[in-house]
């Protein structure tokens, strides 16, 4: 069952993303105010959703599980690392797609808006996480420090989420649901957006699966290299 779902993950991801692009580019109508620019919104909020909540959530939960002694394992450490690495890509995509939408709408590529700034700060945090991992060679020390740093970093996520309510700057509020729980989007536009959320979430897990496998192979290769080096030195009589 698990193998079947893993095998289906790739095709389902591709189909849902293809459907999103088809609905977004051809089926849905232009917006009354934004015109064709609205089509970017079938992509930007889902990417931001993956960047902020799915990938950072995965990294934080895996880090917490690593720090908890009962569930501490290399699996959790690798999972947190891979999720954080993918989040860097999605945060960059969030900022890029937002910037492309912002130029014609707001008149600028970048504004010192609370949500934009806090998202950029989160991106720097994610890069700092990767830098921290590279700075520590001892696997146990690296895993512990990275886990603590990931948890510290996650404090920024609620700040980003509520920034549009707390500071009321340029960025608009929630895209799909209002604070009252009523829908902001309807009809084919709603379906395009929901499919976008599903497609990009699946894409994250698909990428995570392959990145994780790559990390396992890299760990094995490193271990083998050390063993081979030790064997070579022993053969040399050192």
């Amino acid at each position: 069952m698990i193998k079947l779902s893993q095998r289906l993950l790739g095709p389902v991801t591709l189909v849902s993303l293809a459907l999103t692009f088809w609905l977004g580019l051809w089926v849905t109508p232009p917006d009354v105010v934004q015109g064709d620019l609205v089509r970017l919104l079938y992509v930007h909020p889902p990417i931001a959703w993956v960047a902020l909540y799915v990938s950072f959530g995965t990294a934080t939960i895996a880090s917490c599980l690593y720090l908890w002694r009962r569930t501490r394992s290399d699996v959790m450490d690798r999972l947190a690392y891979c999720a954080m690495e993918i989040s860097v890509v999605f945060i960059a995509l969030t900022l890029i797609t937002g910037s492309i939408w912002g130029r014609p709408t707001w008149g600028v590529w970048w504004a010192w808006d609370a949500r934009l700034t806090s998202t950029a700060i989160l991106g720097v945090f994610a890069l700092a996480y990767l830098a921290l991992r590279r700075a520590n060679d001892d696997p146990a020390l690296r895993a512990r420090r990275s886990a603590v740093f990931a948890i510290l970093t996650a404090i920024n996520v609620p700040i980003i989420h509520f920034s549009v309510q707390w500071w009321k700057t340029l960025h608009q509020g929630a895209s799909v649901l209002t604070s009252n729980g009523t829908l902001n989007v309807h009809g084919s536009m709603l379906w395009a957006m929901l499919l976008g959320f599903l497609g990009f979430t699946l894409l994250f897990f698909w990428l995570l699966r392959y990145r994780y496998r790559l990390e396992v192979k890299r760990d094995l290769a490193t271990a083998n290299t050390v063993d081979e080096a030790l064997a070579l030195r022993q053969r040399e009589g050192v």
Partner: protein
Amino acid sequence: MTRIAWLVATKDLRIEVRSRVLLWQVLPFGVIALLLSGLALGPTQAGNSTAGPGLFYLVTLFVTLLMINRSQALENAPGTRASVATLGLDPAGIFLGKALALTIELWITGLVLLAGSVVVLHTALIGTVHALPSVLVTLATLAVAGTLYGALTQGGDGPATLLPVLTLPAFAPLLIAGERSFSAALHGGALWEWWVIVVVALVAYTAVGILLYGVLEES
């Protein structure tokens, strides 16, 4: 926990008093950086600019980074961390003690830099006095967060040069909040929302530090 915190704090402060690194190295650096900030504005702008609070916090940031590295380096001598670990001290107490010592050092530095900004950047004296509570709370938050981030980059193979990369994203909201509070005290404006950020961050970093500092000290 409080007893250990007090012991660690007095130990760190005693080392500081004897070595006088704060007095002869950090404070002169801060004053020079403040002077250079004034020079950057130019003689006509230095007295009229509203950049005083921002420049004060920029210099404070540089000084804080130096002080965090200094605070963590106290245990960097060979065998010190191992011997501290064998004492079986509560890690939460160690964290609170180091954070308290760093807070006191930053408060001293902050007071000197505030006086310097009144003289060099011509920030209003009354407004600066009104800003004092927010400055002290912001510096305490920087110290608590800095103690936690400092522990991430010390010992082992973690180079201390990584500290700015890790801390700057975390310090950015605190510095913005501190600067806005300082500006509000000088020129008027909303104050409470910036206070909330700093106080919530202080509580959050203290809680995380108490819970997780032990993990960082594990060997």
